[in-house]
């Protein structure tokens, strides 16, 4: 299959993809020009959001305290980023794809176990959900999760073992199957069938997006809502359509200050201010502009036309019982996901 494309968008996506690989290494300590330097370790698709948000914060911080601040961001697969922080990457704040990855950092004593209670809304200033990105005109007629397991449909999604976004994809499919077919056994069957329709299992969300958009592989991409909007924006409306399934999951990408690192660097106050600004009207507006669903009801109202209404389950739903339990059941060694690939 071949599609017309915009060379600039193509190049940009490539650059982003290559940068994704190089970013964690490229963070060499720079000359200390600013009064405060913050390092935000984030996940894959937040590049555009934080590039803009960092400028906003630098301006606000200067106005409020008179101090200049330089913010660096590192992006990559959420699990990999968490591991970098555990292994000593000097993050002041982490803004990752799912709570479990920050839990893993907390388990090693970098921050308090109750970190998710320190900020409002489960420490997730913005949310997203999982939607389908399909080829223009939706030639395979994909409308809901059922259609993904139909003969001849190829689904693109990353490996949930390595990608935070992929875990949300998987759990959304699970939630749908559980509700539709009524038993865990059936849900397992459905999710297993779905993964048999996956021809390429990339390690990160951006990788999958490139496979689907650039390589022309697959009929449907399971994507973060913001990533789906971004692809449409980058490649133009004439190549892809977004399909919103009847039920999806409320993805809450959480944020936290890494206590141990800021205590050592003396950056605690700036790091707090950085995360607080995400909850302000301005921060919320910026999140919405970057296709993250804002938490603030007023801002949400302003953007309600952008974000379609979906029936959303949360990770704390009894079907999952929170991240730690979901991780254990589905993604741990020998968990449901491994069982899918073991026979």
């Amino acid at each position, binding site marked *: 299959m*071949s599609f017309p494309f915009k060379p600039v968008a193509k190049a940009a996506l490539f650059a982003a993809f290559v940068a994704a690989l190089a970013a964690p290494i490229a963070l060499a300590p720079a000359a200390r020009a600013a009064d405060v330097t913050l390092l935000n370790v984030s996940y894959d698709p937040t590049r555009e959001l934080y590039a803009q948000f960092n400028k906003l914060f630098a301006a606000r911080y200067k106005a409020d305290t008179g101090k200049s601040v330089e913010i660096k961001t590192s992006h990559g697969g959420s699990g990999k980023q968490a*591991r970098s922080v555990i292994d000593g990457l000097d993050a002041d704040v982490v803004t990752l794809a799912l709570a479990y990855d920050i839990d893993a950092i907390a388990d090693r004593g970098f921050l308090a176990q109750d970190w998710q209670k320190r900020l409002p809304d489960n420490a997730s200033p913005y949310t997203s959900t999982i939607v389908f990105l399909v080829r223009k005109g939706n030639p395979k007629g994909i409308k809901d999760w059922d259609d993904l397991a139909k003969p001849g449909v190829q689904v693109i999604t990353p490996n949930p*073992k390595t990608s935070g976004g992929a875990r949300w994809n998987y759990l959304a499919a699970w939630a749908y199957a559980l509700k539709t077919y009524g038993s865990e056994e059936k849900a397992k069957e459905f999710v297993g069938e779905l993964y048999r329709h996956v*021809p390429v299992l990339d390690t990160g969300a951006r990788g999958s997006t490139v496979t689907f958009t*650039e390589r022309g592989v697959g009929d449907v991409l399971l994507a973060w809502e913001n990533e789906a909007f971004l692809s449409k924006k980058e490649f133009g409306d004439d190549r892809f359509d977004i399909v919103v399934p009847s039920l999806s999951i409320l993805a809450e990408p959480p944020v936290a200050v890494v206590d141990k690192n800021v205590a050592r660097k003396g950056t605690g106050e700036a790091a707090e201010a950085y995360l607080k600004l995400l909850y302000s009207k301005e921060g919320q507006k910026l999140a919405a502009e970057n296709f993250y669903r804002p938490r603030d009801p007023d801002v949400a109202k302003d953007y309600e036309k952008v974000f379609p209404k979906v029936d959303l389950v949360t990770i704390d739903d009894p079907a999952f019982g929170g991240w730690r339990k979901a991780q254990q059941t589905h993604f741990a*060694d020998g968990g449901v996901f491994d069982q899918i*690939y*073991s026979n």
Partner: protein
Amino acid sequence: MSDITLDRTTFVGSPPPPVAQRARSVVPGFGLTLGLTLLWLSLVVLIPLAALFLKTAELSPDRIFAILTAPRTLNALKISFGLSLAAASINLVLGGIIVWVLVRYDFPGRRVLDALIDIPFALPTAVAGIALTTLYAENGWIGALLAPLGVKVAFTPLGILIALIFIGLPFVVRTVQPVLEDLDHDLEEAAATLGAGRWTTVRRVIAPAVLPAFLTGFALAFARAVGEYGSVIFIAGNLPNVSEIAPLLIVIRLEEFRYADATAIAATMLVASFLLLFVVNGLQRWSRSRTGRLA
């Protein structure tokens, strides 16, 4: 690698001095250089390796056994070692032809071709992976030609093979090239004057001289392919049991925060690679002793 030291010593003259006689060596500096060698090797190679095995030792033998015999691990190891052997073998044959053409014939553009060989050395592996994937995907230049024939390259084990061939090629060419260049034409002419046919000359004169170099090139290409990660993950498809290479499985285990499991697989790969290289080294020695040459 031992062939290099042998070359050096033959340069100095007479047989290599035994260790006991080192005080009488004509060149000074044995103590200092050996000390530096040991220190440097320890820092760069031995200590990281020791850490790897120590981390693995955190696991009980049962657990290690369970990890290594899991179907997914076995498949990943099979894919990595099988395809690396295949890629190194293909490089052995085609690299051999390339090196013969580069050394033995003069033609316009020879130097350009010669320089091209090094590109896989110089190119960042991620770039190579992305470029190969772009070419071999079903909408890529080559992939689009192959698709009607029902041949899929990108996102299949065939794609992995292509990436491994790409990164391994210069190892064979660059190892064999100097040996072939040094090979005296006189020998072939002598063989001819003594009545050897052309094939006999190739078989009895040229092949024994270059065989050890070919084995070294093969071993290097193989070793590199087993550890290759950057270029492969883009083109592989990364499906467990089908196109998931062992290095990717190691990364996946790390990302699950299971460091010891990851090192168990890594240590296994290391031991297996070491054994294979040991066999290749033995073959080299055997081929040398058989022909009595120091290639």
